[in-house]
């Protein structure tokens, strides 16, 4: 994903597709519906048809095809001729939005973010509710200057179901004595949903606001638990704002791996034996190249045996929660999640760990729907459980 001003769709982006069909073998939506229309190859062909006039007047239905994609990018990873399908589709979604063809749920999402600066139209102060039922108020709350800013992200901050991720993460930070701050009401949506849904201007405003808020803390490091915020901060902020951020952007897994390896966090040795598999979030693994840090963390936890799913790392299978597919076709999104959770059970694991609030939620729901005895955890949760306190 590069949502900079220079990212314009070019002819070469889709002419590169030679229609070999290799992407069909890996695409989560195609593999479920077995309908070519739901394949990366068809989405690129459709885009080309719109560009070349074979399809003269795109309709809502045309646009819907581009939004029935998880943007997981496994097709891009697989494509031997170098079509960056996920990027091409993000740009195409933007074009559809400019034609007034943004699907209603996503138009409403954009509207909410523009007005409330978060994805669920909550008042800004709600961003700290997660901090209220901890033993004590986290030291990072209300701090104006800090070495590290923890960017909580909308889902972790505002969805009670996901509160335990920021809760676990800050408790680890506290335990390790990290000088950190959270922005609370001053944190806005990172802008990623706006950018992929065609409102680059609002995305840029959000980016500018967040950047200034973080600079004001003097932080040298920004850390996120959300892989999408991470990816957007790391790649799209500098490109879209055309400047150096002036601080380092890290994902929680990278940060935690350092805390463990430098001894600032130490782990108990009385932990039970457990078989764990790790689910690579698309935005963290395939799109940002962070594969090893989470695995190093898991291998470091006493009693953990780490096993891999058949599709892992670059070739990992999406959790079903990507690309806003959930709001377009919830049944398809759930079916993708069900397939992934079955891959996890095939490893014989008792726990599947991810490093993304969205993956954690979709996989948890899938495990429940499939009636599987498989626990689903975020990596911050499993580290906190294992931490010597």
């Amino acid at each position, binding site marked *: 994903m590069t949502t900079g001003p220079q990212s314009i769709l070019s002819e070469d982006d889709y002419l590169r597709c030679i229609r070999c069909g290799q992407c069909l073998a890996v695409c989560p939506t195609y593999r479920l519906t077995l309908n*070519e229309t739901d394949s990366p190859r068809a989405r690129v062909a459709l885009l080309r048809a719109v560009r070349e006039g074979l399809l003269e007047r795109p309709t809502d239905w045309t646009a819907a095809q581009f939004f029935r994609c998880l943007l997981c990018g496994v097709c891009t990873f697989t494509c031997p001729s170098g079509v960056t399908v996920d990027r091409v589709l993000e740009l195409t979604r933007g074009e559809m939005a400019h034609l007034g063809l943004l699907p209603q749920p996503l138009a409403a999402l954009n509207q909410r973010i523009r007005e409330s600066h978060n994805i669920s139209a909550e008042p800004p102060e709600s961003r700290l509710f997660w901090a209220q039922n901890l033993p004590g108020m986290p030291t990072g709350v209300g701090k104006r200057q800090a070495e590290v800013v923890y960017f909580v992200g909308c889902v972790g901050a505002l969805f009670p179901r996901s509160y335990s991720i920021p809760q676990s993460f800050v408790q680890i930070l506290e335990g390790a004595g990290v000088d950190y701050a959270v922005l609370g009401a001053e944190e806005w949506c990172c802008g990623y949903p706006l950018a992929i849904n065609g409102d680059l201007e609002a995305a840029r405003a959000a980016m500018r606001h967040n950047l200034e808020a973080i600079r004001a803390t003097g932080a040298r490091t920004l850390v996120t638990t959300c892989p999408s915020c991470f990816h957007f901060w790391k790649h799209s902020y500098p490109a879209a704002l055309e400047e150096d951020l002036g601080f380092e952007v890290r994902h929680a897994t990278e940060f935690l791996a350092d805390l463990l390896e430098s001894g600032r966090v130490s782990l108990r040795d009385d932990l039970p034996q457990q078989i764990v598999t790790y689910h690579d979030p698309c935005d963290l693994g395939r799109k940002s190249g962070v594969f090893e840090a989470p695995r190093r963390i898991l291998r470091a936890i006493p009693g953990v045996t780490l096993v891999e799913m058949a599709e892992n790392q670059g070739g990992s299978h999406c959790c079903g929660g990507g690309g806003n597919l959930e709001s377009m076709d919830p049944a398809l999104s759930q079916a993708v999640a069900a397939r992934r959770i079955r891959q996890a059970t095939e490893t014989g694991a008792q726990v599947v760990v991810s490093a993304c609030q969205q993956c954690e939620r979709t996989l948890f729901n899938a495990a429940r729907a499939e009636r599987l005895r498989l626990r689903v955890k975020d990596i911050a949760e499993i580290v906190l459980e294992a931490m010597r306190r």
Partner: protein
Amino acid sequence: MSDSAWIDRLREILGPTKVLTSIEDRIAYSYDGTFAQQLPDVAVLPESTEEVAAVVRIAAEYRVPVVPRGMASGLAAASVPFSGGIALSLTRMNRILELDEVNRTVRVEAGVITADLQAYVEARDLFYPPDPSSNKHSTIGGNIACNAGGPRCLKYGVTGDYVMGLTVVLPDGRILQTGGKAIKNVVGYDLTSLFIGSEGTLGVITEALLKLIARPRSVRTALAEFPSLDDASRTVNSVLAAGIVPATLELMDETAIACIEAAMHLGLPLDVEAMLIIETDGSDDEAVRREMEVVERVCRENGARKVMVAQDEKERAQLWRARRSVSPSLARKAPNKLGEDITVPRSAIPEAIRRIKEISARHGLPIVIFGHAGDGNLHPNILFDKRDPAQWEKVEVMAGEIFGVALDLGGTLSGEHGVGVLKRPYMERAMGPVSIDIQRCIKEALDPLNIMNPGKVLP
């Protein structure tokens, strides 16, 4: 289109969700693995032989073309619906119906993905050898309809060698069963063979009974680098003359190597003219190892600069991933490619390669050469930009000349991709008038209305 009476009939029989008529869906079903494209009027997604038969009966009643397709990875435009009509997708018929471990057969629906079948039988220590490079994105039905090959054909034979019986929906909607589990069967004409490689022109293959063999327990794979392409092509025959039948013997020229390297960054050498990938396999680890030693020696004697034997499954998988990516990775060099599929007697490989290189030099467009050199099957790919009419004109001339090379040297137009529409103009020259006449009679006898994939294969 949606107001046509026959489309309403399709909806009545299949239900609305299996009949796709939107322009978006029709675009999705308008192409295959070539640059050809034509919209069907409708795409259908039947889920049983009976549903396929019902579709074909309606097509016959209304004289509408039916174009069967699997995952549309074909390289001859055989599944592109040039006359419109019904794009009939078999992808949802993807059940493995019966594994018979005693008779070593498996019965599958046409839409089973070849690699899925292979994984399924290999988990039970059995083996389905045909391995088209598209095995992860092509179906058994498509493989049979095009009699697909692959690297392992050198030792194990092509798809057709593993088909023991078929269920076929005929152009009038009747359901034909051919063959069976008995190994020997000489009763009547061999109708199974008739449908193998028929590219959907005689009927719709909906199920297949396939032969399995024991899974080879031991495999060794080597990569040999040759500073000279000519040396590499001579090595192919020297290896075979040494009494060894490798499972595969694959050749890639320098452009192919460069394209893979650009796509995959494997550290392949960019200063050699060719590489061979050679694999030996069998039930006895020691014998396989000895064979590989002979292969290494023969390669070095014929001018190989380096022979690297894969040390583990990961290295081996990487070599094959590289080989399977050659064809698509060529898109990095030029917007379009025309991938040919000629075969020659293997003694003629060095000469065929020399002549193809000469064609490339004379017309000034690059031709990449790779392929299954061990069985004489080469894939010369002409790289070009279709937007430039002068280049396209040259490409057509060059393709004709490449076919000329194959025929002059005692070979033919296609080893595994099939004819589709792209090779139709050369059919008569390759097969002669008598053969073409007989084939026309067969087509007319089975499909008098000419609704079954019309305009394909026969000139």
